[in-house]
């Protein structure tokens, strides 16, 4: 008893074994924290994280089911509440989208002809897989989510993960039955992007806030709010042209991107599986023809005005 008193406030920590264990475990935590600072996919604890994600995947799916049902129910009530208004808005969207569809088909046909003339390799058709997010965005420091598909379903690292209205991230780690998605908003996320309208390249850098920043913007270009940001495909991981968001001003003459899809709120996602491009030695069909890309660019078609997709998210 006298011995415990002599320890003062440390008597609450238990005996020498407990205190020794505490010191060892704290040091171990610090060591783990120090060596796990590298990029997530290069973490020495990758295997442990993957195994735990795999093991808990089914439990998390079950845990999230009741509230998911409740959310769907509340969304249905809210949807019915403003049914007439929503029908009118959807009809307008549908009319706009029909025009976009015609334009897309025309451009696709034109593009196919140019590719044929150039002998360019055929772009592989992506396979789209639907998955369900089984964890939230990972607390205040990490913006990553687990989805309920893995290697067994054909998922691989680096594949793009989209909501219906834009990119939300990429596959960072794959287990047998579950995979981790690194969201665009995570501190570790860096995605090469393309600012349409000014043809400028930049890097989209997550900072754990809802609006990632644009860094390394090409010099000499004038960025304006509202410009669309898409993937540039320069990393060789994500395909080119996936919609991300719109440019908006940030503090200190910096720029941020308002994402079309809110990565933290999406429940169902699409994972793009893109087969590798096969480069075959093909001769151009008509070598005398040299199509001028500028000519095609100058053929500006009047595009119908539609929403950009930032108005809603998956429920």
């Amino acid at each position: 008893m006298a011995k415990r008193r002599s320890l003062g406030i440390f008597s609450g920590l238990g005996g020498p074994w407990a205190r020794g264990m505490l010191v060892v475990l704290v040091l171990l935590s610090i060591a783990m924290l120090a060596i796990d600072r590298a990029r997530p996919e290069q973490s020495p604890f990758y295997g442990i994280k993957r195994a735990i994600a795999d093991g808990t995947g089914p439990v998390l799916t079950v845990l999230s089911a009741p509230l998911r049902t409740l959310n769907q129910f509340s969304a249905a009530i809210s949807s019915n509440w403003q049914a007439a208004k929503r029908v009118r808005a959807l009809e307008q969207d549908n009319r706009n989208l029909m025009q976009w569809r015609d334009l897309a088909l025309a451009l696709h046909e034109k593009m196919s002809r140019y590719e044929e003339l150039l002998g360019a390799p055929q772009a592989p058709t992506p396979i789209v897989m639907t998955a369900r997010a089984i964890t939230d965005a990972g607390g205040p420091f990490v913006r990553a989510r687990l989805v309920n598909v893995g290697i067994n379903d054909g998922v691989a690292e680096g594949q793009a993960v989209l909501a219906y209205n834009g990119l939300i991230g990429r596959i960072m780690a794959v287990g047998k039955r579950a995979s981790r998605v690194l969201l665009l908003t995570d501190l570790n996320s860096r995605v090469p992007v393309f600012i349409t309208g000014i043809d400028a390249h930049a890097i989209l850098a997550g900072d754990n806030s809802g609006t990632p920043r644009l860094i390394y913007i090409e010099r000499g270009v004038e960025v304006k709010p509202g410009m669309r940001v898409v993937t540039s495909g320069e990393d060789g991981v994500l395909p080119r042209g996936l919609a991300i968001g719109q440019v908006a001003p940030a503090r200190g003459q910096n720029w941020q991107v308002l994402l079309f899809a809110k990565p933290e709120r999406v429940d169902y996602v699409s994972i793009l599986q893109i087969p590798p491009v096969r480069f075959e030695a093909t001769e151009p069909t008509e070598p005398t023809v040299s199509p001028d890309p500028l000519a095609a660019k100058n053929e500006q078609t009047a595009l119908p005005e539609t929403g950009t997709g930032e108005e809603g998210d998956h429920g």
Partner: protein
Amino acid sequence: MGNTAFLQRVTIIAWAVTPFLLALFCVMIYVAPLRIGNLNIPMPLLPFMAIYFWVMTRPQYMPFYAIFLIGLFQDALTGGPMGLWAGSYLLGAAIMSTQAEVIAGRGRSALWLGFLLAAMILFMLVWGAARLSLGPSPSGGRLGLELLITLLAYPIISRGFSMIQRATSHSRRLTVTSTKVDY
């Protein structure tokens, strides 16, 4: 008779690991997508509530190695750097343990006040560790909101823990009594 003794021993062990398993379950609830509607409200830090509750009431059922494992489990599930929550929980629990004798036995309000202090210390620890580990300043606003929600939720959640603890104590007493009768 041998079987009965074995079963009783298993029951005692099962009740002893209940707080640890419950804390692991709290981690899973913490990371599960349990949002209501489009509200982007952070989840209260349930695992820390479980750790605090048992460190203060029955520390023998929440040893340091169990706290370490709970933290590692949370690190692995959230995808963050390993050791972030594990180390923070350990340090938080160590600080709480030094104050357990002062707080214990003074009622629920003292426990809640203790939790307020412990949670504030923990959030400062974890923020500092995240800043060192992840580099740029993590979002302090979201962390503050999570702290507030955790503090507000504790009185309700701790009632649930109290009920579980009473049930386990009662069952343990019954098991021990019946063991004595058997002997």
